[in-house]
């Protein structure tokens, strides 16, 4: 009898590789590293601690082709997705490819650099910061490796010292219908110099109900006293797989507040990581997840406190309906000398169905002795008493449930700074809770 030893699987088993390094040197060196890694790093399985609960079959039962071989449909008019606050500060990427016609950056002041990574090859900031703060190689991260190997372009935003963006910057990633499942690797590099201030809305929208693999990497570098409000809205196709790698690296007195909204995708895996690189920083890693049907939403976050004096908060709110599955693993690291850390993590789950599933795991690794770190996780249903209370006031059962779900999500939505995003999310919550029935607007 012979024992067959199966070689480890890489992500290349599930896609048609087409990696020609970029002609831009700063990108091509990352491409070359990525190509090595993508051939080397194993595709995760449930035996990996970080992937224990995650069903990856929407990727592993598929075969994704490069977008130019996919027969992608024309994008058409997408002006309904433009944020009114960011009409002249918008970068659009369609299926991962920059769309100059639909982008508009005319409102930004001259000293702010915003544009395509591929046209910024000689920019010192790009050379210095692109791929400078990720830990994905040490983690043997197959998805970040795919992005590294494949990206040719991306969004680059550079806010100079003491400068503030007057309007939010909207990075709009649109995915169209296509004949074949395809993959895309959006990339963002943001550099906020000393005492700069910016609001960024990164959005992913699927226009149809098709399968694709979306693997974005976002790198945010905040220098001393820089302030960033970062909203990430994921409205991919309900059949898409989205594996996201956002990282922020903070210098002294920086403030970074990020809010992730998960509404779409069959599989959403999000690994936000915030690294405190100097003393006295303030950061937020909030999320609101609304899933139903067969959706899987998995967040593995890291709040990495490496220096003294930080305030950090994480409110991760989840609503699960039907057979959907939410996974949350929130890591709070505090290094040995990182004293006086005040960190708070809360994961609240609302289960609306019998078959919905929630896995939650706080993970605190604290090596300093003068810190205040706390965490909490709750999984609950709408109680009969709550529903009865509202029903006894004349509201239908459906309306009562809607109102209670709406109330549950409101805290997260109110953190949104951009008015139209706030409005958009209220509509999405109404759509989510309402589904088939007629809705009577509240308040």
């Amino acid at each position, binding site marked *: 009898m012979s024992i067959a030893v199966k070689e480890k699987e890489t992500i290349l088993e599930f896609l048609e590789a087409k990696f020609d390094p970029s002609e831009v040197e700063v990108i091509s060196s990352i491409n070359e590293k990525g190509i090595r890694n993508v051939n080397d790093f194993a595709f995760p399985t449930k035996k990996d601690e970080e992937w224990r609960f995650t069903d990856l079959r929407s990727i592993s039962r598929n075969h994704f082709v490069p977008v130019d071989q996919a027969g992608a449909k024309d994008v058409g008019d997408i002006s309904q997705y433009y944020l009114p606050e960011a009409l002249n500060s918008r970068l659009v990427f369609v299926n991962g490819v920059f769309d100059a016609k639909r982008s508009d950056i005319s409102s930004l002041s001259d000293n702010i650099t915003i544009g395509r990574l591929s046209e910024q090859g000689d920019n010192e900031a790009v050379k210095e910061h692109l791929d400078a703060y990720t830990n994905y190689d040490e983690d043997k991260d197959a998805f970040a490796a795919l992005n590294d190997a494949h990206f040719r372009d991306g969004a680059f935003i550079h806010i100079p010292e003491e400068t503030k963006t007057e309007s939010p910057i909207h990075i709009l990633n649109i995915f169209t219908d296509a004949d074949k499942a395809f993959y895309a690797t959006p990339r963002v590099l943001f550099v906020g110099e000393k005492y700069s201030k910016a609001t960024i809305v990164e959005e992913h929208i699927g226009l149809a109900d098709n399968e694709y693999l979306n693997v974005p990497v976002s790198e945010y570098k905040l220098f001393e006293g820089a302030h960033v409000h970062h909203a990430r809205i994921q409205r991919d196709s309900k059949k898409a797989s989205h594996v996201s790698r956002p990282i922020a690296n903070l210098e002294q007195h920086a403030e970074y507040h990020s809010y992730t909204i998960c509404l779409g995708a069959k599989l959403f895996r999000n690994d936000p990581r915030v690294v405190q690189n100097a003393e006295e920083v303030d950061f937020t890693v909030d999320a609101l997840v609304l899933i139903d049907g067969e959706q899987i939403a998995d967040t593995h976050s890291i709040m990495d406190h490496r220096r003294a004096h930080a305030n950090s908060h994480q409110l991760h709110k989840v609503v699960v309906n039907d057979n959907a599955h939410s996974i949350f693993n929130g890591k709070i690291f505090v290094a040995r000398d990182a004293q006086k850390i005040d960190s708070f993590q809360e994961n609240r789950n609302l289960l609306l169905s019998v078959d919905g599933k929630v896995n939650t795991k706080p993970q605190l690794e604290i090596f300093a002795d003068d810190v205040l770190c706390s965490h909490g996780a709750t999984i609950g249903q709408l109680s009969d008493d*709550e529903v009865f*209370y509202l*029903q006894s006031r*004349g509201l*239908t059962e459906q309306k009562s449930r809607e109102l209670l779900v*709406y*109330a549950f999500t*409101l*805290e997260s939505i109110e953190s949104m700074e951009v008015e139209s995003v706030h409005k958009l999310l209220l509509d999405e919550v109404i759509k989510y809770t309402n589904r088939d029935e007629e809705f009577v607007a*509240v308040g």
Partner: protein
Amino acid sequence: MLEIKNLHAVVEGEDIEILKGVDLTINKGEIHAIMGPNGSGKSTLSKVVAGHPEYEVTKGEILFEGEDITELDADERAHLGLFLAFQYPVEVPGITNKTLLRESYNTIARSNGKEELDPLEFEDYLKSKLEIIDMKDSFLERSINTGFSGGEKKKNEVFQMAVLNPKLAFMDETDSGLDIDALKIVADGINKIAGGENAIVLVTHYQRLLNYVKPDYVHVMIDGKFVKSGDRKLALELEDQGYDWLENKTMVNGEAQ
């Protein structure tokens, strides 16, 4: 207005009978008090009348203005003009009192073919009712019962009742946990709403509230049944002697059976 006939009820899915044959008739303009020791079933009766899904009626019927409402959902009963002031009002963070009441008021108006109020009209209407419970305008903008003191929660129930103007209200232990000032405000509020076309049922353990709101009838419930009915004097008797003499009597009856 309300006629309860031989009502039996169990907790949904369980065999234990909580209401064991309740009969009660309430007419327009009347104030009734239902008294009884803890666990006698008086709160259950209010919830069953309001349509709480936790309870199942196994026998008997509830007629409201001649219509059998036993099978109706709680919201349908509210549309007909029934109201329950909760013993433990539920907190709903994120939804303001104003939002809920406007939704409630207009839903009930719609189902009765009456005119709905637009936000401005409704705001004026709400403010006109605030004095009943001696609360400020800011009360309207607060999330429903969230962070309210016990007294504020009970006042909010009376306020909701004033706004929705039900034909019949069951008030479940609205007096419990109130200090003397709050008790007077709540009682004044009830007195302002009571009378005329409305009927009110006060469900209470103590007769304290009944010093301020004078009931026309007092019923004593023990072990899921009314064991004695009378006028206000009965409440005073209970205050003096407690429930023991009635409980003993039922035990004797029980043994006799």
